[in-house]
């Protein structure tokens, strides 16, 4: 019970307090305290020191253990950096947005935790709709036309997507007609236990509706557009939250239904759907990188790419599934560093257009170097974790029944890397025509500290490869029926 209080009730309570307290510093201290509690508890639960028993529609299994740890890790660093970001926002008009910033952030944490811990499709639905509601006003932080449009599109398209997911859930109940599950509640484990009895046609339809609906939130092509607009116009820390944890919350819903389908005859069809979606996402990212003009948009497309890789891992199964879970962990951390850097660059140059940005390394050297390192991390250069997780995914593909998929995947990834690299190097090193370059010094602030800490953590996890993480991922793979 106490776990539920810390994971969900405490953030809601903090959110209400943030409404009452107008002082930004107090709000920050409050949110940081909540984040620390949340992180501590999820680490304790993850390490298995404490066996969490949750009541009602909530429970913890190895999958939610891992995802809630990712969520609280990302959230903690984002909150930590938020105050220094709010003190000097990239655009002066953000005054009004600040007032509700921490309130919404706390609400976001509560909604995401509820979605990740839910063991009932209905509860999951309510919570994941709530995450949309919490993040939409945050996208409109800068109060300009672009962010307004992005917020409208995100709110509208994702709400429709989630409505589709709800239809998928209703179809799941249809698939249970005439089985022992008829008239029962929609608990995940009940469905997984009796998966073989479900009507295969309705089950497939249900999966398609849930996958397509949640794709708007995960950012799987061709439903990625609203997500891209939102991520590319949100302030840096919010974009980091979206890329690092919100997409995973939506992916969790897909994984839950996938886990049910895994043990039925519909598995082969569903696999093809997942793989197609994933390859399409990689392709979309590949095409965009050729004409990229806005660097935050480029990073948003990079998220589409990596979520595509994770989905591909799910679809392929086996080793690739293990790789996908590792990839989710590493991607979340690298994305936080990249988006925090992107926020700093936006603040220094007052624009997100890459054609107007040059000599970042001279103007904001610390941010520039960290951004470059984070770019290496996200591209899968060793010793950063992405290298190992991508290798695992490739290995999984190679030894699966569809090894030929590896060719297009490698091709897309190579060109995404080359084009992203070209753009980022021209931002960092490029010199404007007849422009003079001054070497400026940049004070070391919280955002740099967070970036350094995360990069060290990222490398440490990758190199030491903690056994507890590996064991946990193995248990997840076993739950999904992938014996290694």
């Amino acid at each position: 019970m106490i776990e539920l209080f810390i994971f969900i009730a405490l953030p809601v309570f903090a959110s209400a307090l943030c409404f009452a307290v107008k002082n930004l510093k107090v709000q920050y201290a409050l949110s940081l305290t909540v984040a620390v509690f949340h992180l501590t508890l999820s680490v304790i639960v993850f390490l298995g020191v404490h066996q969490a028993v949750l009541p009602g529609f909530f429970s913890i299994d190895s999958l939610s253990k891992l995802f809630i740890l990712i969520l609280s890790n990302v959230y903690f660093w984002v909150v930590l950096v938020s105050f220094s970001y709010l003190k000097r926002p990239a655009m002066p008009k953000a005054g009004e947005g600040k007032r509700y910033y921490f309130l919404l952030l706390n609400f976001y944490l509560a909604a995401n935790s509820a979605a990740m811990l839910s063991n009932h499709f209905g509860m999951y639905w309510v919570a994941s709709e709530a995450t949309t509601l919490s993040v939409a006003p945050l996208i409109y932080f800068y109060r300009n036309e672009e962010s307004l449009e992005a917020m409208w599109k995100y709110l509208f398209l994702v709400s429709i997507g989630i409505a589709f997911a709800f239809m998928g859930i209703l179809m799941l109940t249809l698939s249970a007609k005439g089985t022992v599950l008829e008239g029962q509640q929609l608990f995940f484990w009940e469905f997984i236990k009796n998966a073989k009895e479900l009507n295969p046609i309705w089950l497939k339809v249900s999966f398609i509706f849930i996958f397509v609906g949640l794709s708007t939130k995960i950012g799987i092509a061709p439903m990625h557009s609203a997500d891209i607009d939102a991520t590319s116009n949100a302030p840096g820390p919010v974009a980091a939250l979206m890329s690092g944890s919100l997409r995973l919350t939506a992916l969790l819903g897909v994984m839950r239904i996938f886990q049910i389908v895994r043990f039925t005859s519909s598995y082969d069809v569903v696999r093809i759907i997942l793989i197609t979606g994933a390859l399409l996402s990689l392709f979309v990212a590949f095409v965009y990188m050729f004409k990229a003009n806005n660097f935050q948009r480029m990073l948003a497309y990079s998220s589409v790419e990596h979520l595509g890789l994770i989905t591909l891992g799910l679809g392929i199964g086996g080793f690739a599934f293990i790789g996908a879970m590792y990839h989710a962990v590493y991607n979340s951390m690298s994305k936080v560093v990249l988006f925090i850097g992107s926020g700093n660059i936006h603040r220094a140059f007052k624009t997100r257009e890459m054609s107007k940005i040059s000599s970042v390394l001279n103007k904001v050297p610390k941010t520039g170097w960290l951004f470059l390192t984070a770019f290496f991390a996200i591209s899968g250069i060793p010793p950063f974790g992405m290298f190992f997780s991508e290798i695992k995914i490739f290995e999984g593909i190679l030894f699966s029944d569809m090894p030929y998929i590896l060719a297009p995947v490698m091709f897309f990834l190579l060109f995404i890397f080359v084009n992203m690299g070209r753009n980022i190097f021209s931002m960092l090193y490029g010199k404007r025509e007849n422009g003079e370059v001054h070497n400026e010094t940049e004070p070391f602030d919280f955002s740099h500290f967070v970036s350094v800490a995360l990069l060290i953590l990222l490398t440490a996890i990758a190199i030491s490869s903690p056994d507890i993480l590996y064991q946990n991922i193995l248990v997840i793979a076993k739950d999904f029926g992938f014996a290694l």
Partner: protein
Amino acid sequence: MENVLSILFCLSLFYLSVTSRVKAYVTVLRVQGIILTILLVIPFLSHFSVYGIIIPATMLIVKVIYIPRYINKVILDLDIKRRIEPTIQQMVFLALVIATIVIIFFASQLLSKSTPLNVIPFASGFSAIAIGIYIIMFRKKLIVHVCGFLVLENGIFLFGTSVAFELPMLIELGTLLDVFVVVFLMGIALNRISSTFEGFEVAHLGRLKD
């Protein structure tokens, strides 16, 4: 009784496809809310319980009273013109709607042979989902898009009753609350859009492109 109400619901969809006034959309939303509330109340006529009346009551408050009133207020505040401004001709739209509904009814009839389901509520709910999407696709005004989204939501609700499935009360209330907040946020966003772009049409939203 359920079938009669579902057919009434379906008729309201036809009305939606021929009317060209924004106000009529709001009225239809209200009527659909009343139909859904009655559908929820029917089971309680035989065995009444105070506990079970909470959801129909919330439904009534959210879908019949609060949301239509809020949309009317937005229309009034922003001085939105009364016409819906379609992107295709009304007659073509009506033909499309009729064709869709006919296909959905036939398909549901076929499906009902393999799975036991209530064909009329099932098909009506599904039609409302399709029409809601059409409204979003073929209308220029953003406020009409919100109405389309709500028609879609109502359709899902009717669809839910047709598969004879009951969510626990807490979750049911949660879904209603979510819809409530979505509409509220959309209203605020519309307010901002009208002051930022000086208009409420999709055409104004074209800044974000690849």
